[in-house]
């Protein structure tokens, strides 16, 4: 042996292996273990699926009761044919895991506050945020309550078993790509994770209040209640509610009374507001459209239902298409990887869809604690014992972080001296949220999957508590309906818009509105129902619905206008409407902008862009420059009006919504905010603000034009991010129009996450598309193959077949059989 060279080469080899076996820090993130990652037999190459690969298979699942056949169609949509319901959900769990395992686990890790465990110390604040919101607490509570129903428990348990059977068969080299990239391994799935996922949806659709209420409190403290109430008015001139204006309501069965101290303690000018920008905030544009037209308005004489839920757009997609057929039901639609059953879809008798109700179901209470141990809080004149929960946050590559969350009569204390920022200093803010109240979880969707008629639909949705939704419905028998359903708090005016005093029960919720009093419409004479996240009723409804800023106005206006005008409607008409880019907000705002512009001396260049605006067809199509000019002027105008005053507040304030500024413009009164607070020697008018906005917008537009980015599609630059926000795994620069206030609500990263149209003919005619693909594997050609179809405003004709037809269909490309032996 040549000792010295041997040692040198051996140490060199060992050193190289060690380096290649380590995650190296690069910039803010870490590389995968390169040797492992690049190994063709173990690393990422194993996830590069052959494009002509087969999806056939014979799979043994020991827990199955009988044989299950799955036909995979050419879009990789599974059509599950099982002999009983439990087997069907067992198989659905297996398939979700096979195609979406990483995402299912990742999303539930986020909900449970376990992100640091995977990605390291950067996300500790996010983890604390979700834990302090009581996400796990609520998931467990709902699970306990929902599991009392044996059917639901069996479905969710069978689903979990299916996921776990897949995981246990998974060879180490077959684990999904992202595990290899971040270097961790899948863990076992549990029923609790399904509930965590549903909690994540509750968070995404109802939790804007955790930031909003703080900002609104700041605004009230800063402006004083009187001015606040004018500035953030709850009056919406343009509103066309879900249930038409003028509808009569029965008086409230719960009479809510504001506490006597409300003027001094709540509306008053106490300067006790706190503010915090949460590490994660649900998107303001989380919303949706849905509508149904009756046979009286369609060419076929049968109803048509349309739904497109607007959510953050991600890869892998939130949705996974599936058909589930058992002796009890045959249902098709979009399912959530992470949960059994179909969430938005149809069966052979009915179809249903959802939009977000947007009602305020989350509030803060200002608590008094004895000391920082959080053990005792003052409530109803005595010291009460808080339930202090220890949260152990595992952090990748670092020691665990321990956090303590106190649970009070209202709920978990979200902010306290150990979790605060400069503006919540010294405060203990407890959170009260309907999502903490348990509920029957998936029951509503389980029942809707099996519903045959209007009564079944109503019974099913009455079990729904959080997040409140507008459930639209059609049946083959010709009924159409919409109902806003959820556990909605019976509130007095402005209750919960701000932080409420929490030292006694005076400000406590006084009740939940009974289901029978939730707004509903069935078979109206006008022949259609619709919702687009606007307020569900006018002010004659006997309960306070929440702050106007929770309810966008314009999509509802244009949808109702179009539906009222349409007749002899076909599914193709509905497709055109669902992807329409007409900007009704601009229709209202452009004339007043042009009027002001005509009264201002403009430069040649400014005139040019005003000309573009003037000749614009009011459509936010990909190629329209006018849409960009309009947006640039409007945004500059908002900045000119609000920025100077609002920046003077040391704490963050929400800017008033667009309808508020538009109404001010239309009234053209002398307006305090038009004056630039930074020019004390001058008093600016609205005209000056518009003039400033045009100047600024012209500069911006000229720059855009130089870079060939003035066309709306280029300017908006829509994208679909991978859940880890890694560009090469995302889809960038998508040529798609639309935007805020438009039926095609696609903004930069947000929009129609599933478009579905169901025509209730004898053989159901249904269309669907979502911006993603059935496989969650970035190495599969099915990863993002729907994206271009979706961006182009096109649809897939949905295959909804009986088993015999599926077995023979040329569009079914693969056949998987599941047996227990």
């Amino acid at each position, binding site marked *: 042996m040549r000792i010295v060279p041997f040692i040198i080469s051996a140490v060199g080899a060992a050193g*190289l292996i060690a380096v290649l076996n380590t995650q190296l820090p690069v910039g803010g993130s870490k590389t995968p273990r390169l040797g492992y990652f690049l190994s063709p037999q173990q690393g990422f190459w194993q996830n*590069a699926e052959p494009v002509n690969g087969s999806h056939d298979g014979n799979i043994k699942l020991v827990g199955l009761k009988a044989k299950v056949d799955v036909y995979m169609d050419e879009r990789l949509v599974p059509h599950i044919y099982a002999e009983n319901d439990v087997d069907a959900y067992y198989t659905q769990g297996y398939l979700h895991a096979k195609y979406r395992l990483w995402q299912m686990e990742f999303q539930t890790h986020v909900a449970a506050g376990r992100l640091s465990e995977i990605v390291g110390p950067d996300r500790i604040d996010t983890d604390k945020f979700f834990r302090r919101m009581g996400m796990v607490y609520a998931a467990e509570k709902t699970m306990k309550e929902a599991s009392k129903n044996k059917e639901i428990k069996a479905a969710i348990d069978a689903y979990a078993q299916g996921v776990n059977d897949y995981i246990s068969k998974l060879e180490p080299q077959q684990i999904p790509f992202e595990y290899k990239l971040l270097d961790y391994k899948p863990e076992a799935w549990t029923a609790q994770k399904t509930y965590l996922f549903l909690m994540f949806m509750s968070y995404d659709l109802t939790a804007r209040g955790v930031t909003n209420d703080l900002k609104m409190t700041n605004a009230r403290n800063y402006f004083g209640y009187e001015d606040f109430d004018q500035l953030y008015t709850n009056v919406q001139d343009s509103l066309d509610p879900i249930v038409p204006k003028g509808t009569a309501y029965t008086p409230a069965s719960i009479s809510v009374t504001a506490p006597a101290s409300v003027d001094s303690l709540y509306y008053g000018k106490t300067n006790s507001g706190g503010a915090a920008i949460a590490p994660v905030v649900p998107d303001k544009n989380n919303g949706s459209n849905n509508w149904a037209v009756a046979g009286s308005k369609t060419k076929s004489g049968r109803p048509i239902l349309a739904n497109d839920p607007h959510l953050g757009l991600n890869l892998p997609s939130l949705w996974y298409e599936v058909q589930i057929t058992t002796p009890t039901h045959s249902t098709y639609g979009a399912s959530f990887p992470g949960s059994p059953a179909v969430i938005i879809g149809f069966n052979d008798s009915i179809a249903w869809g959802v939009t977000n109700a947007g009602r305020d179901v989350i509030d803060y209470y200002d608590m008094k604690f004895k000391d920082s141990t959080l053990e005792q809080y003052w409530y109803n004149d005595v010291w009460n014992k808080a339930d202090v929960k220890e949260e152990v946050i595992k952090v990748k590559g670092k020691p665990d972080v321990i956090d303590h969350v106190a649970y009070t009569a209202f709920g978990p204390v979200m902010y306290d001296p150990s979790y605060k920022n400069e503006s919540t200093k010294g405060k203990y803010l407890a959170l009260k949220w309907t999502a903490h109240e348990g509920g029957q979880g998936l029951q509503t969707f389980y029942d809707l999957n099996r519903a045959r008629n209007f009564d079944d639909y109503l019974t099913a949705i009455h079990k729904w508590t959080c997040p409140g939704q507008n459930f639209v419905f059609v049946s083959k028998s010709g009924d159409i309906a919409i109902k806003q359903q959820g556990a909605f708090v019976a509130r007095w005016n402005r209750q919960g818009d701000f932080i409420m005093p929490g030292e006694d029960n005076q400000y406590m919720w006084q009740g939940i509105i009974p289901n029978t009093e939730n707004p509903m419409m069935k078979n109206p004479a006008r022949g259609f129902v619709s919702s687009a996240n606007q307020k569900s009723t006018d002010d004659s409804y006997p309960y306070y619905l929440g702050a106007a800023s929770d309810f966008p106005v314009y999509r509802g206006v244009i949808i109702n206008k179009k539906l009222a005008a349409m007749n002899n409607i076909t599914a193709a008409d509905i497709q055109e409407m669902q992807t329409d880019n007409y900007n009704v907000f601009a229709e209202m705002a452009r004339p007043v902008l042009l009027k002001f512009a005509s009264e201002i001396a403009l430069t040649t260049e400014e005139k040019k862009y005003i000309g573009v605006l003037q000749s614009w067809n009011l459509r936010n199509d990909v190629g329209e420059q006018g849409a960009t000019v309009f947006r640039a002027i409007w945004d500059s105008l908002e900045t000119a009006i609000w920025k100077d005053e609002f920046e003077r507040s040391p704490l963050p304030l929400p800017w008033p919504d667009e309808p508020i500024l538009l109404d001010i413009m239309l009234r053209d009164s002398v307006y305090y905010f038009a004056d630039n607070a930074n020019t004390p020697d001058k008093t600016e008018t609205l005209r000056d603000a518009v003039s400033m906005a045009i100047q600024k917008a012209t500069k911006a537009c000229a720059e855009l034009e130089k870079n060939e980015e003035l066309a709306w599609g280029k300017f908006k630059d829509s994208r679909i991010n991978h859940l880890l926000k890694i560009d090469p795994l995302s889809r960038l620069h998508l040529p798609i129009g639309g935007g805020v206030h438009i039926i095609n609500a696609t903004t930069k990263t947000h929009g129609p996450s599933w478009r579905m149209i169901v025509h209730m003919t004898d053989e159901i005619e249904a269309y669907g598309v979502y911006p993603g693909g059935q496989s969650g594997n970035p190495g599969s050609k099915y990863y993002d193959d729907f994206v271009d179809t979706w961006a182009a405003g096109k649809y897939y004709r949905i295959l909804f077949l009986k088993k015999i037809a599926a077995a023979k269909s040329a569009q079914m490309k693969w056949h998987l059989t599941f047996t227990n032996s």
Partner: protein
Amino acid sequence: MKFLSALLLTALLAFATGLYGALPWWSFAITSFIVAIAIHQKAGKAFLAGFAGLFLLWSILAFLIDNANDHILATKVATILPLGGSYWVLILLTGIIGGLVSGLTALAGSYMRQTPKPKQSESI
């Protein structure tokens, strides 16, 4: 002949251990080391045989997988790493990484068996 046998055996054993996903990715380092001891060559040749065995195995495997995949994943990974989005560079990098580890362990294997006074007259 020795060179070729060492190269092929290195590749074959690496492939065989690679089939077991539960083993670490660098298991071939041990087999390459053993091959270099069993088929003794001078340091330079041992290194080359070890390197080439894994370079060829890994780059050919990667090439075949990538081809069947229409470069979908390799293009993405070659952008993340970043290699300018070139699947070719990624395939070569894969081969070089495997080759280097294998070559160095083969080198160690060769030195382990070499007597301090190197003998002559070994040929391929």
